[in-house]
């Protein structure tokens, strides 16, 4: 079976594209690992129009419900490749291939990794990318937060209330975030800030036991014994598998034009995966809508179909 549109990714951009595409009466399939992506971690969203305050998970569930009601189908799987064929595109997942006339890429970003020895080995064994999710498992333990921005400050604040001792290691000299939160953090008695430091190795037998930091000025190293490490250094995109398929910028983000078209005809992209500035839910939804409209127009032109939108 050939779909009109396959949307890769199921968060703000992807779900909005799904709502638009299915309302255009395009046969729409969303392939995603989960619903909501990183938005799920936001407990309170207060800048999405129409809602004074709503949790990330609730907003995303509403998006999903609306997409399903409009007729979009969902498959929960990981996309591992896309290739162009004569009459469309083949989207490969871990165990099945799906075909569509056009594809919208909207799989967002994932937590950035440190790329140091020990990191992947200890993931889930003391190393975590979210204090919101895993913080409570480190009650009365010693932990370290890596990072200097809002995410890291928030993580350290949470952990100071849960854990015994909290270290915070960052490459710069100062933390970067809301002054109010930084003041609150600096007042915590069980916190030790380690500026100008860089993680060079994570050590342990079968779980995290210590971390080795290097001082940026003296190059001296210091080993700190601890039970948990929270890497909170922001996000990155994982676009390696489409590197030769569409043009990416230096950060790996998909380059799109104003209509959300990529360098390959018939492939569109929207949301945090693209080089569009400002990562906001309201922006991602707008971009998702735009990508769906562009995909619709592309199908009309290329396949000269008689599909008409409800409102056209």
């Amino acid at each position, binding site marked *: 079976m050939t779909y009109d549109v396959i949307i890769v990714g199921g968060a703000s951009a992807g779900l909005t594209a799904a709502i638009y595409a299915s309302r255009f009466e395009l046969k729409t399939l969303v392939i995603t690992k989960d619903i909501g992506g990183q938005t799920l971690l936001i407990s309170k969203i207060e800048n999405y129009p129409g809602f004074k305050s709503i949790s990330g998970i609730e907003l995303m569930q509403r998006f999903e419900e609306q997409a399903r009601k409009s007729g979009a189908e969902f498959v929960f799987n990981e996309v591992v490749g896309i290739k162009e064929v004569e009459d469309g595109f083949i989207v490969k997942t871990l165990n099945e291939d799906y075909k569509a006339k056009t594809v919208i890429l909207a799989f967002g970003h994932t937590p950035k990794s440190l790329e140091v020895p020990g990191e992947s080995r200890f993931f889930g064994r003391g190393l975590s990318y979210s204090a919101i999710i895993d913080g409570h498992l480190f*009650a009365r333990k010693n932990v370290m937060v890596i990072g200097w921005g809002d995410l890291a400050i928030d993580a350290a604040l949470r952990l100071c209330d849960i854990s015994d001792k909290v270290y915070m290691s960052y490459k710069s000299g100062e933390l970067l975030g809301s002054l109010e939160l930084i003041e609150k953090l600096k007042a915590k008695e069980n916190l030790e800030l380690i500026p100008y430091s860089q993680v060079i190795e994570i050590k342990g037998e079968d779980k995290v036991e210590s971390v080795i930091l290097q001082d940026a000025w003296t190059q001296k190293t210091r080993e700190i014994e601890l039970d948990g490490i929270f890497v909170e250094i922001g996000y990155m995109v994982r676009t390696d598998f489409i590197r030769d398929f569409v043009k990416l910028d230096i950060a790996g983000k998909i380059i799109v034009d104003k209509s959300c078209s990529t360098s390959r005809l018939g492939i569109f992209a929207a949301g945090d995966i693209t080089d569009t500035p400002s990562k906001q839910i309201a922006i991602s939804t707008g971009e998702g809508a735009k990508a769906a409209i562009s995909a619709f127009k592309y199908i009309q032109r290329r396949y000269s179909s008689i599909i008409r939108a409800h409102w056209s």
Partner: protein
Amino acid sequence: MSFVNDHIKLLLREIFEKELRDEVRLVFFTQDIECEFCEETRELLQELASLSKKIKVEIHDFMKDNDKAKEYGIDKIPAIAMIGSKDYGIRFYGLPSGYEFPVFIDDIVDISKGNSRLSEKAKVFLKSIDKPLHIQVFVTPTCPYCPRMVSIAHQMAMASDFIRADTVEIIEFPHLAQKYNVMSVPKTVINDTLEFIGALPEEQFLEKVLLASKMPQSPIHL
């Protein structure tokens, strides 16, 4: 104290009225001097039962009704065995709160209907399993990626007579966090022989189950 506000109660009443078919028994295990979350869990279950005639709560003392605990394979409290027209092997250990609450409601509906929402392919595959598999999903109430794993695991239990699926709110059971080295959630352990971290799509979860079913069996901890 009320766990469910009036607005949610109204919604749940409607859902239960519309969706429930068979009676669902929530067999709850607690003890005389109730454990930290036992009281809350019991009150939550009683509140849910007050919203539909088709939901019944049965309360047992874990120590005194040891035979019952054995019958349902309960080894810690608070514990809820969710029983429909038969025992599908679905257990909840700990208070089903936070992100787990909606899954708990979905479970009640699924059990009442006696049908899982898995794909046909998954159901066919799960019917081929002929050895006992014990799936434990460790979660925390603040983990937004956990409910999907819980939901798939419980539906697998529904689709196979050989699968037993437990959800364990790990903060309430620190000794299990220690035993299974739970440092990230969701963490899933199958038969104590295979474990993985993170939320997997249905198909990948099925592959893990297939792998576990082919591994040499170790004693199942009930």
